[in-house]
């Protein structure tokens, strides 16, 4: 993606478009936008090489606010549009911005297939556990019993967990962050951008209008040290205000243990984002509040062939074997005859 010439030094402000940002005041989306603009200059990719693709929903307004190329498409289809774009133009840096409804309801099929193809794209899912744009119906990530306009007696369908879904789809990069945890969010977005293959990032995003405080347990200053655990590659899983608690494996299940009383750091589960099998990442994705602290950070980061690369390689191989296509030769490839 290097152009070979010296790149002008860009600032976050250079990535802001001239459009007025129209999310509700206080919406978590603002913070995600700010972090995105902040990491962009550090990627060394010119603005014109970057494309943001989105579907429908509050989060999907995102491309309008970036001074890059962008497509605000139709509900659920952003991963498929990005797939076509990246396959046709492997030179571009392609981001998909989506929400819990967009990605996991109407667009579930495209999300699943984009991830398993492992195109070199980044998918950021803003999870606010609600339909914001349509004014407050429950979403596929809303918890059981959630009372909304469309579920006055509470939701009776089981929620999906985006990270578990992504891992089930053979994702090569899976991470989670939180809208207000801006440093961590910036780090996760940057790592996603640098991953070669489909990078899937779930961001806990507060919808202060229709689902305020859905992630309060994870953002509250008092409680977050006990409800969130930060994953670091090669490090033991430790959490708590005094960093005195950890996660240990008991058979195939995680358990919370207190450090000290006969339990040392070495007894804890060590995070390995590069584990070839996704079992550990999946196990971590099942750790939920309130039973467990919820992991944030990179769950999984492994290398596997990328769809866009493989398509280009097949073209190169065909060219090497057959030479550049000759249409006249093709037209005459069957039996032919002449009429005088």
């Amino acid at each position, binding site marked *: 993606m290097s152009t070979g010439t010296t790149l002008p030094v860009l600032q976050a402000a250079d990535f802001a478009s001239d459009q007025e940002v129209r999310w509700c005041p206080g919406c978590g989306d603002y913070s995600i936008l700010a972090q995105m603009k902040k990491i962009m200059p550090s990627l060394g990719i010119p603005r014109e090489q970057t494309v943001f693709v989105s579907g429908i929903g509050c989060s999907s307004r995102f491309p309008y606010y970036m001074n890059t*190329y*962008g*497509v605000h498409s139709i509900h659920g*289809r952003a991963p498929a549009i990005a*797939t076509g774009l990246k396959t*046709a133009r492997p030179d571009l840096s392609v981001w998909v911005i989506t929400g819990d409804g967009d990605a996991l309801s109407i667009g579930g099929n495209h999300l699943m297939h984009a991830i398993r193809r492992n195109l070199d794209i980044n998918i950021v899912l803003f999870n606010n556990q609600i339909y914001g744009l349509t004014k407050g119906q429950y979403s596929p990530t809303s918890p059981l019993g959630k009372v909304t306009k469309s579920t006055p007696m509470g939701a009776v369908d089981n929620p999906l967990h985006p990270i578990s879904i992504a891992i089930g789809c053979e994702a090569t990069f899976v991470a989670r962050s939180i809208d207000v945890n801006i440093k961590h969010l910036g780090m996760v977005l940057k790592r996603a951008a640098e991953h070669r293959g489909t990078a899937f990032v779930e961001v806990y995003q507060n919808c202060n209008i229709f689902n305020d405080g859905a992630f309060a347990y994870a953002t509250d200053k008092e409680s977050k040290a006990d409800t969130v655990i930060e994953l670091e590659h090669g490090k033991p899983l430790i959490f708590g205000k005094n960093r005195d608690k950890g996660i240990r494996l008991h058979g195939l299940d995680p358990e919370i243990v207190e450090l000290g009383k006969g339990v040392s750091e070495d007894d804890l589960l060590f995070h390995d984002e590069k584990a070839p099998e996704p079992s550990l990442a999946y196990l971590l994705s099942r750790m939920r509040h309130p039973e467990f602290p919820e992991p944030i950070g990179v769950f999984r980061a492994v290398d596997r062939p990328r769809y866009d690369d493989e398509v280009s390689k097949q073209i190169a191989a065909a060219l090497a074997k057959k030479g550049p296509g000759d*249409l006249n030769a093709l037209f005459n490839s069957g039996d032919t*005859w002449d009429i005088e």
Partner: protein
Amino acid sequence: MSTTTTPAGPSAPKGQPQRAETNGPAGQPGHKPLVELTSATVRFCGDSGDGMQLAGTQLTNTSALAGNDIATFPDFPAEIRAPRGTKAGVSGFQIQFASTEIFTPGDRVDALVAMNPAALVTNLADLNPGGALIINRDAFDEKGLKQAGYETNPLEDGSLKSYRLFPVDMTRMTRLAVESQGLGTKESDRCRNFFAMGLAFWLYNRSLEPTLRYIDEKFGKRPAVAEANRLALKAGYNFGETTEALPSQYFVPAARLKSGHYTNIMGNTALAWGLMAAAKLSGRDLFLGSYPITPASDILHELAKHKEFGVRTFQAEDEIAAVTSAIGAAYGGAMGITTTSGPGVALKQEAIGLAIMTELPILIINVQRGGPSTGLPTKTEQADLLQAIYGRNGESPLPVIAARSPADCFDVAQEAWRIATRFMVPVMLLTDGYIANGSEPWLVPDFNKLPKIEVKHPGPIAEGETFMPYARDEYLARPWALPGTPGLMHRIGGLEKQDITGNVSYDPLNHEHMVRLRQQKVDNVALAIPKQEVSGPPKGKLLVVSWGGTYGACLTAVQHAQSQGLAVAHAHLRYLNPFPSNMGELLKSYDKVMVAELNLGQLNMLLRAKYMVDTVGYNKVQGRPFSVAELVAQINELVK
């Protein structure tokens, strides 16, 4: 032309029987009378596992190489593997070959090769009285007869006496012929279609060479199978030659087609090649997003083979991903295409609306089949015209064009792309199962002489200058700005846009302006397409209007009427939205207008609504093409 009104072939030989020197496969001169015909229509039919499509294809290629004009009609069973010997599993392949120009595979057949009772019972009605009926007698056992619903054996009960019946022990003789190769019974029986081919080749005095070459190519790696097929083919040929069963041979001389270099081409192949040509002519990389669906999948298969042309095919997870990936590719500057059939178009329509709104050029190819819903997947129909023109939410116009024959698909593919890029619109291209699988001789073009397709992209602009993604050119097209171009960063999407700036706009007057603008853009296509031509008198008693795959049958029927001295003309429409600019005037130049379509009158409705002309529909919705005879009857009815 072989129509029911001018029958030809073994059932009604034309011209004097004549003796001629012919050479059998072993080089012996033939010893039976050779009857010259202007055309012949042959149908192979049997179980879907009997290799009837291959038999038909071989006779087609051989006849094409012999210089005949040809037209074919493969007829697939609905089920992929219905139980053996049942009526549901019958597969057929019909071919007409002629020494004159022909436009249809023929209404009725002069020779029917039926491999089992189920094939006989489902196809017999199409055989001309007096036609040759070649039967695999071995399949007419108790079980086979029962499966076909025969109470008595038709080979013995006299019910076939109006045909020239040739029962042949094909299974037994094939087994004997291939015995030396040591194959099992099942494998030996698979050679039966080559025996049937050999017999048909003898009957029409065809060379075995092209099929022997095919066997070498196809089965070269399995010498015993290759040899068995060769032996079966020759055994079939020799059976015709040596036994007394078949009294004479027929001969259809070369046609006087326009001089040039020909190959035999199927509609789906011609379409794929036309798309590849269009990509090259416009300097674009071809991207196809497609989900497998009958009868369109062969376009995907064909394009997937040609990666050395830079073709990128993407087998999507569903129809929606197929079209949206094409939109993504188009945004990136590729030639974005999606191929499908009617049910697939239904799923794609929201996304097609997005392409209309974002004013991106993509091609949507609908190989129509019988509907609604899953309908008749393997049968032909033209009932998606209104879906193509109107089947989306909002005012969402797009140009719609249709191919008329297998070879025409090549030209129409390029025309569709020319319109899409010139006007920055998605274009819907309609073909149908009949032309997709049918084949005809194709005057092979020289790629270097095909007209270029001009495509422009705006270049970079400096910091501080503003780019207007919805600026307009003289045709109202907006610029196709490509990601990667410095300074042109812009956002497009499905929300209504302000003209010129491309910013999201909820302004009521801007919305009406944009709705009218998108309509005008499509209307402007009429400025760039040729006027509608007619074949026949410029005014008169009757104008027959048709579109799509019914071209051959309608033209043949009109030519027949003209040969009877009737003032009948034919207008076959390639451009269905918008119509050519002279369409109204044309319709008003005839006393009557008949609109023939394989639907309940969709084009007819459009023409009546737009031009207020009292046209009459002629409609058929049976999953089958028009026969020339029924069109001729209708024309006679209208002009009498």
